[in-house]
């Protein structure tokens, strides 16, 4: 049985940062990921990472922007921690070798980003997430003696001891199909978001909300699950992300009449208003008939000097060329709002602790909450790193002097039986995994998107309930052990359905409009009743709803304009 003091599940930025931080504290660490670490979705963060490191900038300014961006749903104590620690974290990355863009003086230079009152986004061309993650992986390779890597291991469940503490996980070695119980004194979940619940999504195929579902099943509270970000600029047909950096560099949004319509919605910040605001503006233009016939808006990057595009938006040039057949230096590219980010997740404090002892969560899987109703661009990388590190440090501290946990073999037997049951289902009886997944994605994108109302949400909820039924008998084709991605797909579908259920319930519950949750039937923010988080706890069928307060420190809620 692989045994470590700290087991990290997921190896994107949050997971790798947590593992490195824990290892630095001198405890034994295992990091496990269903894909090779460098395949993780942190790669996709293009634009950059925020930190108030310029001389004329302050962490308070960064914090205020973040809180305002969150539509005052973020916990301000957590935001303070993140923004205060950002500069140090950024320098840590630079010293490890991240190739941050330099200005003429050879110092790190910044770009502007949405919802920010200063240009405080540091970047590596438009591959910032990739550059940081590959550098962290370099450090993981360097730390091979201290951190054991389990690459291509898929977790199916968390292990709890009799006292309800998290003491490990069950995992399937993707390569040979063997199931193993991993024992640990503390487990850090860093499994990312759940974008695949929506179709289309900017998220990778691996973003199936595994950690959110596993923690929920283990009894941890989920929070802010209704807050799903639709990114303003995703490629119409395929859902690919066009970085906010494009607008940061000066690109315009135009409707079919050629109007720079953001004038109407955010006269000061224009295209650089917060994402929920820009996405709603676009969707309004499209819904009111001022979009292009294919239901899109034009993003005009040609107003940015070509030289600058080639230097700073190289990846977008490639995406345009390879995936849309558009030379973005010469013509506008058609975009629309698309599913992008899970603001909610497993409820944690700012050391990553969940409601289950021994279980931590960091990154997109977690909800600290620093993003509240709407995440600012270039705050997600920061979130993963700050809270990844804090989880790693805290978990290392927690395990010190703690006795070897006792893990029951029964869980492994149960999980093996569960997999065997799926593999053993009769082909052709019931639905295919892909049919259920596609129906789920479509209903969520239709009813749990930019604009929502009670009727649509109810339809979505009922569909999700039915799909959960159907998923219990859906069949797969692959009956092998080696690289059986089919059976993993079936388990992921179950995870996704738990995520979808939680989001529908929370979205129905919140009868106001705040951040990414815009209810056409309750179009106003209602601080009197709803300046609070919705927490969800597992309870057989639909989750049980409870509430928790939003921590306000220095910034009282105000009207939000850009």
């Amino acid at each position: 049985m692989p045994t470590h003091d700290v087991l990290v599940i997921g190896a994107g930025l949050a997971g790798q940062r947590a593992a490195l931080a824990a290892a630095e504290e001198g405890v034994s660490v295992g990091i496990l990921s269903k894909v090779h670490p460098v395949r993780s979705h942190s790669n996709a963060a293009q634009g950059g990472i925020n930190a108030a490191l310029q001389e004329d900038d302050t962490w308070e300014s960064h914090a205020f922007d973040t809180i305002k961006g969150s539509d005052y749903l973020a916990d301000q104590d957590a935001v303070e921690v993140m923004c205060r620690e950002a500069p140090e974290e950024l320098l840590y990355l630079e010293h490890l070798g991240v190739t941050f863009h330099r200005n003429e003086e050879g110092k790190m230079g910044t770009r502007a980003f949405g919802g920010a009152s200063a240009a405080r986004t540091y970047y590596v061309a438009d591959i910032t997430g990739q550059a940081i993650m590959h550098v962290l992986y370099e450090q993981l390779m360097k730390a091979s003696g201290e951190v054991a890597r389990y690459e291509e291991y898929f977790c199916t469940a968390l292990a709890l001891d009799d006292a309800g503490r998290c003491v490990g996980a069950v995992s399937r070695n993707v390569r040979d199909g063997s199931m193993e119980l991993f024992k640990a004194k503390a487990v850090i979940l860093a499994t990312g978001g759940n974008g695949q619940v929506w179709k289309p999504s900017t998220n990778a195929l691996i973003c199936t909300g595994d950690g959110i579902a596993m923690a929920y099943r283990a009894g941890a509270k989920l929070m802010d699950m209704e807050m799903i970000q639709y990114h303003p600029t995703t490629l119409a047909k395929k859902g690919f992300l066009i970085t906010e950096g494009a607008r940061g560099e000066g690109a315009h949004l135009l409707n079919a009449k050629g109007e720079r319509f953001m004038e109407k919605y955010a006269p000061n910040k224009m295209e650089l208003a917060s994402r929920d605001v820009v996405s709603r503006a676009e969707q309004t233009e499209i819904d009111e008939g001022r979009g292009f016939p294919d239901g899109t808006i034009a993003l005009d990057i040609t107003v940015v000097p070509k030289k600058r595009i080639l230097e700073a938006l190289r990846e977008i040039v490639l995406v345009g060329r390879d995936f849309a057949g558009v030379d973005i230096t010469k013509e506008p590219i058609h975009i629309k709002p698309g599913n992008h980010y899970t603001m909610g997740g497993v409820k944690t404090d700012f050391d990553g602790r969940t409601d289950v002892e021994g279980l931590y969560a960091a990154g997109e899987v977690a909800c600290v909450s620093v993003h509240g109703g709407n995440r600012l661009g270039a705050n997600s990388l920061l979130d993963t790193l700050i809270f990844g590190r804090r989880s790693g440090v805290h978990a290392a501290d927690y395990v010190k002097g703690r006795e070897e946990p006792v893990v029951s073999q029964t869980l492994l037997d149960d999980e093996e039986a569960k997999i065997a049951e799926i593999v053993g289902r009769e082909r052709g009886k019931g639905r295919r995994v892909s049919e259920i997944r596609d129906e789920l994605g479509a209903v969520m994108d239709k009813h749990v998107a930019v604009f929502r109302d009670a009727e649509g949400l109810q339809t979505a909820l009922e569909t999700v309930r039915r799909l959960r039924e159907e998923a219990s008998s859906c069949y797969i084709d692959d009956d092998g052990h080696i690289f059986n991605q089919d059976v993993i797909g079936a388990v992921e579908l179950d995870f996704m359905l738990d995520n979808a259920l939680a989001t529908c319930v929370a979205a129905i519950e919140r009868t106001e409009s705040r951040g990414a949750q815009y209810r056409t039937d309750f179009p106003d923010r209602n601080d009197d009743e709803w300046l609070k988080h919705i927490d969800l706890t597992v309870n057989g069928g639909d989750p049980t709803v409870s509430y928790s307060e939003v921590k306000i420190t220095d910034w009282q809620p105000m009207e939000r304009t850009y």
Partner: protein
Amino acid sequence: MAKFSLKVRRFKPEPGEGPYWENFDVDLDPDLSVLDGLLQVRDQQDGSLSVRCSCKAAICGSCGVKINGQSTLACKTRLSEAKEWANRSNGNSEPITIEPMGNMPVIKDLVTDMESTHWQKIRRVTPWLLPKGDPPEREYIVPPESMIDVTQTMACVQCGACVSACLSMEADPDFVGPAALAKAYRFVGDPRDGERKERLHDLAQDPHGIYNCTHCFACVEACPKGVAPMDQIMRLRRIAGHDEDIDDVNNGRRHELAFVNIIEQKGTLDEALLLQESFAPGIKGKLKPPRGAIKALFDNIPTALRAIRSGKARSAEKLVPGIHPKLPGDAQKHVKRIYAHAEEHRIELNLYIKGEEFGGGDDNEAEELAENELQGKEGAPA
């Protein structure tokens, strides 16, 4: 929507049968990718078809395969494009062939064992920054272009397409290879690294290192991210040979110098002299030949004799090293002058920084950029 026929190389390890081809028909928008085609097969026809994939946007590097024999990412290759390529020379009926990557063992279907090949080679080059001394209080101050320069290799997504395509590795599985050597340049080119010379020494002396690249451009062609691994290998050679003056046991440095000197003296190549000078340069080399030189010279004797016998090297200037004629008139003088000029400046134009690939580089744009920066795009509050 259009119909596409996919001919997929299958391998199911568990029944223990050898690999086989299987054809699948899919119906998809021609703008969608070959990966979308494979995913449709998996979703609708055969869920047991294995292929690593995640982002579908050429960022995660999972879906390296060979399409119509070319190593690439399945998500980055459009179905229409792949079909056209499959049918370049015969009619319109050929299927798109999809195989696992080369130079790696196959685990199942399109899934290869990258750990024992690609990743082992990556780890071979000490792939982490080894800074000199303690870090500064703030960031390292480095030239802006140096960061753009190494960002070219940071753009590598570790997909293995270059390794799959590498023709040197096909002949020598121990070759460190394009991906790992590009990764090595990422540190050699990084002004923050303190072990540049040691890294270069290591890779120049390794018989499977920088001098084992056969300069075939296969990696440059295969790379979906413009990393141009071979260009990075040539830069490693340039820095190892010229800047660090590393006299390697593989004859790389001596061969390069011999070649360069002959052209300076003669203008065109004197093959006999090249052979001799590569292995035992100058008088000093002949009196005390470097390690391996005598064996290498002997190895080449049969070839030299055959050249004489077949008439290739029958005339005196081809047989005797050094009597090869110079360029006519004053041409040789001008070549020598060019040498002096180029050695004085040694400009290395980096097209990745210039952005040539997209046709950039004219003066107006440079002015535009400067103007833009003056307006405070850079670092100033928005």
